[in-house]
C-alpha cells in the first residue's frame, strides 16, 4: 500500500514535471505562436457520459438470468430419447473420444447413460421440446431462441462462470456488464449502468463472487452494483433520522470539494470516480424508492411472476426488480440463481430449482413484451456449462446425478434483435457432442455485443501495453439467430 502510494506520487510528480516543462519550454518554443491552450486537450473522460454504439443497436439493454451451477440441458431443453432407450448402458467410447472428465467422475469404472426422468413435449408453432419441469417457459417458446450448441473451455464452475461472464477463465478481466457500461455508458444517470441481483435456490449451490461483476482494468464506475436481497435493495441510501435533503446536499458539496482538493494533489482517477458515485447515490435516493414501489403495479403482476416475487431476495422478486431496473434504463441487469449443481439427487433438486425460476423467467419475457420493451431488451437464460449424459454416482430407479459437461449445453435468448421461435445448433443423439453449428462462449459474447450495436473487435481497452476485448482474440457473430 505504502508502495502504491509512493508510486502514485511519483506518477504525479512526473506529470507535474512534464506539465511544468510544457509551460517552460512552451514559453520559449511556442511563445511566438501565442496560443496558450495548445496542450490543453481535455481528456474526454466524463465519468458518466452516455456512450454510443458503433451502429444502430437491436437491443439497448440486457437482462442476464444466470443459472448458476449449470442446469442440465438433458432435463430441460435438449431432448434425447436415445438416452432413455439406452438407459443404464455404458457410454460408448466412440462418443466420448477420450475427452477429459472432472475429478468427480474420472474414477468411475462405468459411465451408465441416463435418460431424462422428466417427460418432454413439443410446444408452440416452433415445436420446441421442453421438459415438464418448465411449463411456463413452454408456453412462450415462440418468443425464445434456443441455442443447443453452446460450448466452453472450462470444466469446473468457477473458471466456467468467470469465462462466461468476463471472457477469460481467470478473474481479472472486466465483466460483460462492465464492458457494456464502458462501451455504451449509462442511459439513466440516476442509476448504475450495471446492476447485480443474487438469489439462493434450493439445490446444491455454487458460490458467486464479486469478481464476476468486476470492472477489471476499466474505470471503477463500470463495476456492477450488487443490490441487497433485503427490503432495501440498496443499503445506506436512506437519509438517517434528523438529516434532511438539503443537509445531505450540503454535506455532499463539501465532501466533493475536499475530494477535488485531493484529486488535484494526488491525481488518482479513483477520486473522481468516488465523487461521481456520491452524486449518483444522491440521485438514487429518489430513483430507487420508485423502483421498489409496488403500489403502481397491478395486483395480477403477483400472479404473473408468482407470489414469491413479494419476498425480497427470491429469484421471482429479482426478475420483477430486473424488469423495473431495465425499464428505468439500466444497461445490464445480471441475475444469479444458485443451486443448479445436481451431481446427485437430480430428480429431487431439479424440480425445486425449476419451480423457483420457471414462472418468473417466462413472466419477465412477457412483461417486457406487453410494455413494448421486448424488442429493445435482450433476455438471456442459461448456465456456465452442461451436464453429462451419463450418471455420476449410483444410478437408481428414480434418482441419479450428472457431472459437468463443457462440450454442449443449452441456453435461450429472447427479445432485442433475436429471432423468436427458433432453435439453433444440434447435438448428437447422445447429447454429448455437437454435430452442427457450434457456438463458443466468445461467439456468444460477440453476438451479444453485436445486438447492442458494438463491433466486438472494436470495443477495446488498452491496458498493460496491449489492447483487450471481451472476446479476446476470437469470436464470430452468430448471424442466423439475428432477427
Amino acid at each position, binding site marked *: 500500500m505504502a508502495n502504491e502510494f509512493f508510486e502514485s506520487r511519483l506518477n504525479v510528480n512526473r506529470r507535474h514535471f*512534464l506539465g511544468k516543462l510544457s509551460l517552460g519550454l512552451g514559453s520559449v*518554443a511556442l511563445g511566438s505562436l501565442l496560443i496558450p491552450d495548445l496542450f490543453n486537450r481535455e481528456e474526454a473522460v466524463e465519468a458518466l457520459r*452516455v456512450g*454510443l454504439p458503433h451502429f*444502430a443497436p437491436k437491443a439497448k439493454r440486457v437482462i442476464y438470468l444466470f443459472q448458476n451451477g449449470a442446469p442440465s440441458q438433458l432435463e430441460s431443453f435438449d431432448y434425447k430419447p436415445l438416452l432413455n432407450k439406452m438407459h443404464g448402458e455404458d457410454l460408448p467410447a466412440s462418443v466420448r473420444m477420450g475427452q477429459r472428465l472432472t475429478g468427480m467422475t474420472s474414477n468411475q469404472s462405468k459411465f451408465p447413460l441416463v435418460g431424462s426422468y422428466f417427460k418432454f413435449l413439443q410446444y408452440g408453432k416452433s415445436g420446441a421440446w421442453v421438459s415438464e419441469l418448465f411449463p411456463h417457459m413452454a408456453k412462450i417458446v415462440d418468443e425464445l431462441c434456443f441455442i443447443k450448441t453452446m460450448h466452453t473451455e472450462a470444466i469446473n464452475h468457477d473458471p466456467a462462470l468467470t469465462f462466461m461472464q468476463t471472457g477469460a477463465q481467470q478473474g481479472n478481466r472486466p465483466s460483460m456488464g462492465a464492458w457494456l457500461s464502458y462501451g455504451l455508458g449509462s442511459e439513466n444517470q440516476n442509476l448504475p449502468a450495471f446492476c447485480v441481483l443474487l438469489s439462493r435456490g434450493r439445490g446444491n449451490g455454487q458460490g458467486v463472487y464479486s469478481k464476476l461483476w468486476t470492472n477489471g482494468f476499466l474505470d471503477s464506475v463500470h463495476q456492477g452494483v450488487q443490490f441487497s436481497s433485503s427490503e432495501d435493495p440498496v443499503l445506506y441510501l436512506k437519509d438517517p433520522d434528523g438529516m434532511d435533503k438539503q443537509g445531505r446536499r450540503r454535506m455532499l458539496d463539501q465532501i466533493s470539494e475536499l475530494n477535488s482538493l485531493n484529486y488535484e494533489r494526488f491525481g488518482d482517477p479513483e477520486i473522481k470516480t468516488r465523487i461521481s458515485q456520491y452524486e449518483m447515490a444522491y440521485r438514487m435516493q429518489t430513483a430507487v424508492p420508485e423502483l421498489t414501489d409496488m403500489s*403502481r403495479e397491478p395486483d395480477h403482476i403477483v400472479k404473473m411472476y408468482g*407470489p414469491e416475487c*413479494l419476498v425480497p431476495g427470491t429469484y421471482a422478486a429479482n426478475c420483477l426488480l430486473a424488469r423495473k431496473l431495465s425499464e428505468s434504463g439500466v444497461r445490464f441487469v445480471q441475475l444469479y440463481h444458485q443451486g443448479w449443481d445436481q451431481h446427485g439427487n437430480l430428480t429431487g433438486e431439479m424440480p425445486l430449482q425449476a419451480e423457483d425460476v420457471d414462472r418468473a423467467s417466462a413472466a419477465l419475457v412477457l412483461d417486457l413484451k406487453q*410494455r413494448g*420493451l421486448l424488442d429493445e431488451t435482450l433476455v438471456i437464460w442459461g448456465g456456465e456449462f452442461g451436464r453429462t449424459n451419463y450418471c455420476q454416482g449410483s444410478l437408481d430407479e428414480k434418482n441419479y446425478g450428472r457431472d459437468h459437461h463443457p462440450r454442449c449445453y443449452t441456453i435461450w435468448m429472447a427479445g432485442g434483435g433475436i429471432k423468436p421461435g427458433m432453435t439453433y445448433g444440434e447435438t448428437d443423439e447422445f447429447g454429448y457432442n455437437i454435430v452442427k453449428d457450434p457456438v463458443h462462449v466468445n461467439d456468444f459474447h460477440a453476438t451479444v455485443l453485436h445486438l447492442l450495436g458494438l463491433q466486438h473487435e472494436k470495443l477495446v481497452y488498452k491496458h498493460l501495453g496491449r489492447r483487450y476485448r471481451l472476446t479476446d482474440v476470437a469470436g464470430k457473430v452468430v448471424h442466423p439467430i439475428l432477427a
Partner: protein
Amino acid sequence: MELTKKIVSNVVLFIQVLLVFLLMFENSLQVPPVLQAFGRAHPLLLHLPIGLLLIIALLVFGRKWFQTEQTDNITSFLLYLTALTTSFTALMGFFLSQEGGYLESELLIHKWAGVILSFLCWVLITLYNKPASFRVVISLTVVLLIVTGHFGSMLTHGENFVLAPLQQEKMKERAITDSSTVFAAVIDPIFEAKCYTCHNPHKAKGKLVLTTLEAIAKGGKNGALWKPGDAAQSLLVERLTLPIESKEHMPPKDKAQLTQEEIRFISLWIESGADTRKKLSSLEEEDSLRRLSASIIPLYHQEATVQPKYSFEFASDDKVSGLNIPNRAVFRIASNEPALQADFYLREHYDKKLIEELEAVKDQLVVLNVSNMPVTDDDLRAVARLSKIEKLLLNKTDITGDGLTSLKALNNLRSLSLSGTKVNAAALERITNFKSLQEVFIWNTRVSDQDVDRLAKQFPHISWEKGYVPDENEVLTLNPPLFVNEEPILDAGRKLVLKHGLPETEIRYAVNCEVDSIKSPVYKEPIDIPRYSIIQVKAFKSGWKSSRSAEMVVFKKGFKPDEARLVTNPDPKYAGEGAETLVNNKKGLKDFYRDPAYIGFRNNEMIAEFAFDDTPIINSITISYARNVYAMCMPPEYVEVWSGTYAKNMKLLKRVRPEQPDSWVSTRIEGCIIEIPGSRFKHYKIVAKPLSKLPKFRKEPKQKGWLMMDEIFFN
C-alpha cells in the same frame, strides 16, 4: 547571404526540436483552429520538397553534365529552401494528423518517416561540405521520400490508388442484396481472398483463371473445375481436400487455406448443381447452404448493419448534450446515426416543459419514452410536434386517451405503448386511422378482452398486444408470511413482526405447535414472545391456496454472565472464541460451523462455568445449538444445570434430555429450555453431552453426534 543561411539553418533545427517535442506530448495536444488551417495546407506544400529534393539529387549525381560555376551555389540555395519547406511541411502534417480520421498504422509510418525526412534535410545542410557523406545521405533521403510519399498517398487516396485502374476486373460489387447470387456472395469472395493471387489473367497458374465466370467455365489445363451435381468427381473439391503435403493440394501449403466450412460450402454447392445464377435469397431458411453461408459471409463482407438507417441531418452535439439533465436522457441511437432517443426518469421531477424543449431536436428524435411520468392528455400535444417519432412509450402515464387524437400528426409513428394507462376502447378507435401505426401495447388498461378481439378483427393491420391476462381458474399457492425481525434474539420489549406483501392476506401463527387454519390466532399486531419459542406462520387468502408454514426460532435475550469459562476443551476444528462464544449473543448461519459463532464438541462433554456478580433472579436457562441431521449435528443427549454460591461447591439443579429427531428433519438452530426454580445463585455450571449414538434412521448408529453449541441464555 551567410546570415540568412544561418538563420534558416537554425529555424530548421528549431522546427526539428519542436517536432520531437510535439510528438512526445501528442496525447495532450489541443490543436486550435488557426493551427488546423495551417495544418490543412500540408497537402499543398508537400509537393515543393518532393520536387526540390529530386532536383538536388539530380544536380548532385548529374554533376558532370551540367557543371557550371553557379551549380554549387544553386544547389546550396536549393538545399536550404528544401530543408525549410520540408520541415514546415512536416510540422503542418503533424497538425493535420491531429484531426484524426486516418488509418492508424499508415499514419504512424507516414508521420515518423516525415519527421525523419525533415531531420535528414537538416543533416544535408550540415554535410554539404563533405561530398561523400552527402551523397550517401541524399540517396537515403530520396528513398525515404518515396516511402513517406507512398504512405501519405495511401492516407489520402487509399491503397493501390495508382494501379487500381489496371485491375478494373478485380473491382467487384461486394454488397449483398436480394439479387446477389450464391456464387457472388460466398464463393467468389473466397476465391478472391485465397486463389486470385495465382489464378488471375496476369498470372494464370495451370492456365486457370478464377476472376470471372467465363474464365472459370473455360477451366485450366486439367479441364473443368467442377462437375455440377457431383462434388466427389470435381477437380476443385479434389484439390481442396487432398492432404496438405500433396503437391497438387490447393492452395499450396504456404498460402492461406480454406476453412473446413468453406470447403463444405463449395462441395455442397457443387452437389446442389453448381448453379451460378442461383440467388442467395431463394434458399430456404433451413437450407444447409444458407446456414453455412451465414458464417462465411461476414468474413468477406462488411456488416450490413454498419450502414446507417437514417439519413437526416445530425443535430449538433452541443444541442444534444444541452438537453441532457439527470431526469431526461437524450442521445444518438448510434455513433453513425443522426437519429435520437429521449428517455424520462424520476416521476417527481417531471414537467411538461421537458417535452416541449425536445422540439429543438424534432428533426432527429425517433424514440420517446415517457413511461411512468405523470404525462397528461394535454401534454400529448407537445409530443405531437415531434414529427419524426417512430416509437412512443406512454406506459403508466396519467393519460386517459382523449389526447391520443393529436398524435395523428406523427406520420412515422410505428409503435405505441399504452400499458398501465386508463385508455379505453373508445380512445383506441381514434388511433386506428394512423397511417404508419403497426403495433399497440394495451396490457393492464381499461380495454376489455372482447374489445381487443374486436379491434384485432376490425383493424388487422395493427398488432394489438394485450399481454398477460390472469387465468381465473388458476389457483396459486401463497408464499408464507415474512418475519420482519432479522435477529432471532429478541431484546426485552422487542416484539415479533410479521408481514405479507399481498394485500388482504390473513396471517395465522402458532407458538410451539403447528398452525391451524381455524384455531390458530390471526396476526393483527406485533407479538410479544416472552421466552424461547418456535413460531410457525401461514398465510391465507381467498382465491389462493394457503401457504406452506414458515417457522422462526426465537430466543429471548438473557442476563449476561460476568465470567464465562470452559472446563472441557472443544474440538480444535470448532473452537469458536472459547466460552465467550456461548454468551456473546451472536448467531451463526444454520449450516456453517466454522463460524466462530459456534463451538463444537464430539468426543467429550461440554462443561462450562458462569458467574454473575449481581446474582439476578434466573428462572430458566436456554441452550441453543445447530440441528443438522445431514451433518450429524444433533441435540445433546442430556443437559445438566448445576449451581451454587461457590464455584467449588455446586449442586445439580436439573437434568433434561432434549427431544431427538426421528427422521431427516430440516436443518435449523434450535434450543432446549431448562426450567429451574427462580433463584439468585452466583455460579452456574452447564454440562451438555454430545449424542453418543446417532438415531437409527441415520443408518450409522455407531457414530457419535456433534454438539454444535451456539449460545446459552440465562433468563
